[in-house]
């Protein structure tokens, strides 16, 4: 991955909190009501392909593993609402042949108010020697 991509801000994308998708998520995790806390992962995947295929970032996704994940909720998402997802590359570091990238995302509602802040660390494993 290219460290010069640090700070890149990606175009906002929309994500609908679809009732059927929420229900499928609940069923998978045995949660009987509301929106499961990690349902917002689906919103991240509305924005993430654009980041991971950015030629300026030049990340080899076949070597990428997930290092850590943080969600800070400002309020629970509401079923049926449309969220806007804003992604940026917060930091890129290299250490011992491994690349460490932190992606930050803000999920905001139709009025622009924050719903969830996301930090996600991806590791690009070094090439075999």
């Amino acid at each position, binding site marked *: 991955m290219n460290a010069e991509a640090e700070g890149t801000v990606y175009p906002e994308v929309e994500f609908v909190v679809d009732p059927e998708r929420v229900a499928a998520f609940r069923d998978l995790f045995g949660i009987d009501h509301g929106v499961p806390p*990690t349902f917002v*992962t689906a919103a991240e995947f509305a924005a993430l392909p654009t980041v991971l295929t950015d030629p300026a970032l030049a990340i080899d996704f*076949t070597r990428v593993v997930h290092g850590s994940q943080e969600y800070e909720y400002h309020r629970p998402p509401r079923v049926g609402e449309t969220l806007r997802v804003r992604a940026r590359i917060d930091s890129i570091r290299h250490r011992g042949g491994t690349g460490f990238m932190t992606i930050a995302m803000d999920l905001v509602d139709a009025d622009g108010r924050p719903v969830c802040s996301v930090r996600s660390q991806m590791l690009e494993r070094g090439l075999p020697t």
Partner: protein
Amino acid sequence: MKERAEVPVGSEIPELRRVVTREDVVAYAEVSGDRNPLHVDDDFARSVGFPGVIAHGMFTMGHMAAAVTAWAGDPGVVGSIAAQFREPVFPGDTIVAGGRVRSVDPDEGVIALETWVALERDGRVGWAVKKGSARVRLA
């Protein structure tokens, strides 16, 4: 829903255990939109150095969040949740989510938890998530 008076510091939340199946991983790829072939294509997974497909880290974290939600009684009271991923989880592994109350703010009703997800495979116990955390707001 749970109330803050019921949660002494140091108390543990009930363990939540499940065997991860290949069907779970496929279902998670579908519902999350994370269709990385590492999770659904054995040949691809082997080509990048794994013995076969691995579960999504976010599947493990979703399970951890389910344990916190079951304990709190409502997903809407979860104010934050975080996880550092350790070992990969393969279909057939058993994951066991747990947590412990670290602090209680009696004024705000904010409970801080340390959380984890143990990993059981062939009689060996490791960590899918060794360091996790969550914050919930109780009435």
